[in-house]
């Protein structure tokens, strides 16, 4: 009982005692008008404590008036005064019960609305479902005046009020049968433990169960109210779950949009860098071609020298051709198209040997080693595309490794594929950047200064290899350097 309740109880008891003492001090007749003063404590107790309070106060009044009525009957028989006294007792008891009942009903109604508001407030705050359920259980325990309230949601995955859901428990039974259960005596307490479990329903579906326990009575009215709560809480929980899902979706969307924006920004930056780089890459061979062609046009050279200059010009033209091919492939890729390839059954060994031999003749600053392990199976591939892939990888290896170092090309057949490794002894690629080197325009910052490049070569390699159903990956070579491995499906 609260402090205010104790004060009211004391006031009621005091009023009964004072009124009784006043009656005794006066004439003591059961018909005295002062007897109606008992209505004051009776109504007060009924309003404050409900039916029980009203009845107990009325009982106090009966105990107070009773002796006067009995004495009247004993002394004078059933007189009018005695009858008035008896009627007064009945009126007091009736008033106490009636006022208490009405007050209790009004209070319960108000408490129900307040509980619903508290439930809505608890569900309105954004939080994970488990935390919302715990908060809800705490609100219901306090508001419903029960000893414990628990919730089971998400088919037993979220349990509030216990560590786990026992499959033979009353709550499990309610979840299975979708009907409320009321047990008048659970547990082994000295006092009877009432248990009410109601399903939480939303849109015809059972989304969980609400269980409450109390050492004491749970009236039928309270049980009916709990069933109503079950529907309201189920709906509110479902709404909270939907709201949480929407929040999560919005957060994910925001995150993805942020990532995409950042990626677009980086692409924009890379493209800007590429435009500058491409201009430079195109200008360099063009300048060489312009210079050598002017020399040939304006001066007379010995035939040997003319052939040398023509060779240089042919090399620059090939370089221009490669750059333009890369641009064209990239343009196809950005439109979502695969590179144009013309497949044919071919033996990869001669192609690999020719590519290695070409670089061995033209790039004498490095040692180039070729190891072909056994006979290679045939592949279904575009010979030109395969040639570009090999030349790109060998060219990169030569570009990024120091003069005098060795570039090894190894080809072998393994698990239904033809694998070609190109290893260099350069500075290598940091582990965190190995996956990114295949992205268009991307160049490893530490090695970008070691040679010219558009940042397109490896992305074109990757698209060509994947167009053949193969894979390409970058690893650290044993010791130092980089190993690029191309795997192409072998024909059976």
């Amino acid at each position, binding site marked *: 009982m609260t402090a205010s309740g104790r004060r009211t109880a004391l006031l009621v008891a005091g009023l009964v005692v004072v009124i009784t003492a006043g009656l005794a001090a006066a004439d003591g007749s059961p018909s005295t008008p002062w007897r109606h003063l008992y209505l004051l404590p009776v109504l007060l107790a009924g309003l404050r404590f409900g039916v029980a309070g009203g009845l107990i106060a009325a009982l106090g009044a009966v105990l107070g008036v009773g002796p006067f009525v009995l004495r009247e009957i004993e002394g004078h028989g059933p007189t009018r005064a005695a009858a008035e006294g008896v009627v007064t007792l009945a009126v007091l008891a009736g008033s106490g019960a009636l006022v208490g009942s009405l007050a209790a009903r009004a209070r319960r109604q108000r408490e129900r609305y307040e509980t619903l508001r508290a439930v809505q407030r608890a569900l309105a705050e954004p939080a994970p479902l488990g935390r919302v359920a715990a908060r809800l259980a705490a609100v219901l325990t306090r508001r419903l005046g029960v000893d414990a309230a628990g919730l089971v949601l998400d088919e037993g995955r979220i349990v509030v009020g216990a560590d786990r859901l026992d499959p033979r428990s009353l709550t499990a039974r309610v979840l299975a049968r979708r009907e409320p259960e009321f047990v*008048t005596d659970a547990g082994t307490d000295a006092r009877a433990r009432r248990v009410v479990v109601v399903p939480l329903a939303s849109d015809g579906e059972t989304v969980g169960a609400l269980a409450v326990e109390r050492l004491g009575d749970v009236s039928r009215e309270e049980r009916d109210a709990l069933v109503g709560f079950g529907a309201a809480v189920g709906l509110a929980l479902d709404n909270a779950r939907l709201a949480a899902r929407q929040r999560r979706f919005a957060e994910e969307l925001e995150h993805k949009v942020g990532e995409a924006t950042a990626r677009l920004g980086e692409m924009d930056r890379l493209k800007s860098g590429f435009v500058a780089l491409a201009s430079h890459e195109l200008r360099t061979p063009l300048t060489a071609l312009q210079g050598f062609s002017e020399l040939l046009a304006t001066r007379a050279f010995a035939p040997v020298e003319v052939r040398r200059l023509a060779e240089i010009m042919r090399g620059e033209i090939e370089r221009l051709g490669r750059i333009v091919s890369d641009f064209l492939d990239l343009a196809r890729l950005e439109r979502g198209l695969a590179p144009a390839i013309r497949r044919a059954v071919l033996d990869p060994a001669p192609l690999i040997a020719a590519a290695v031999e070409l670089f061995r003749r033209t790039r004498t600053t490095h040692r180039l080693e070729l190891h072909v392990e056994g006979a290679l199976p045939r592949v279904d591939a575009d010979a030109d595309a395969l040639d570009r892939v090999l030349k790109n990888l060998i060219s990169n290896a030569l570009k990024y490794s120091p003069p005098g170092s060795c570039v090894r090309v190894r080809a072998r057949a393994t698990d239904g594929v033809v694998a070609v490794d190109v290893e260099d002894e350069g500075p290598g690629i940091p582990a965190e950047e190995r996956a990114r080197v295949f992205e268009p325009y991307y160049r490893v910052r530490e090695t970008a200064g070691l040679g010219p490049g558009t940042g397109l070569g490896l992305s074109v390699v990757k698209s060509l290899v994947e167009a053949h159903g193969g894979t390409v990956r970058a690893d650290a070579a044993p010791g130092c350097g980089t190993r690029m491995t191309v795997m192409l499906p072998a024909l059976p």
Partner: protein
Amino acid sequence: MYAIARPWEPRPGGLLSGAPLPLLVALGVLTAGAGALARAELVPLTPARALGAGGAQGALLATAVAWAASRGGPAPWLAATVVLAGAVGAALSPLGALAYLAAPVWVWLERARLPGLGLARAPAGLVVAGAALGALLGAHLFVTASLTLGYSGRVPTLEGLAPWLAYDVGGNVLTTEAFFRGALFDRAQRRWPFPAAAALVTALCLVRYLVDPLLPRSLEVTAGAVFYLTLLSLANCWLYWRSGSIAPGVAAGVVFFVAYRLLHVVP
């Protein structure tokens, strides 16, 4: 929480299941026999009344013990025997009623084996409230009976009051509270709402006192018994319901009956 974490099974058995029927029949025969012998003037009235009351009260305590005893608890006939010993003592001499005090001593010693008898430690506040309630009803009874019905009070003497006090503590109140609150009400409140359980138990408790041969047969005493014992029983049910212990009810009953014994109602 029990409802979530523990397996649930419906509890078998009805309200009165598990009563020691053969013992109750034997005690019933004893009670009825004592009454019959007294009516036939084969046995003096006082010892016949004491034996009859002892048989009935022994039946109450035996039933309560049978319902409350855990596995391996005391035999119900022991409870009946202890109460009957008090009754035999009272039949032999007034001071022999002090033998009734063996009953609370026995119950106290066996409390560990009687977990369902409402012998749990009650909050001190509720025991005090019980005693205060008994005092209030007793005082009201005393005032009403002495001022309006003409029953005079009497100065208690040790010889006069001690046997009654021993009877009330060990026979009357203990057996009533143990059976009607600790056993019957406990079972009833685990099946029905408090008002229904309290009403049933109070009605049966009233019957127990109204058929008691020790209650003087006059209209005003019967009316007073109905009035006060109804209030006392309802209040004791509430005290048990709140505390899970018969201690507050015993306190209320003993104090009330002390006031009752101070009136010149008892022959």
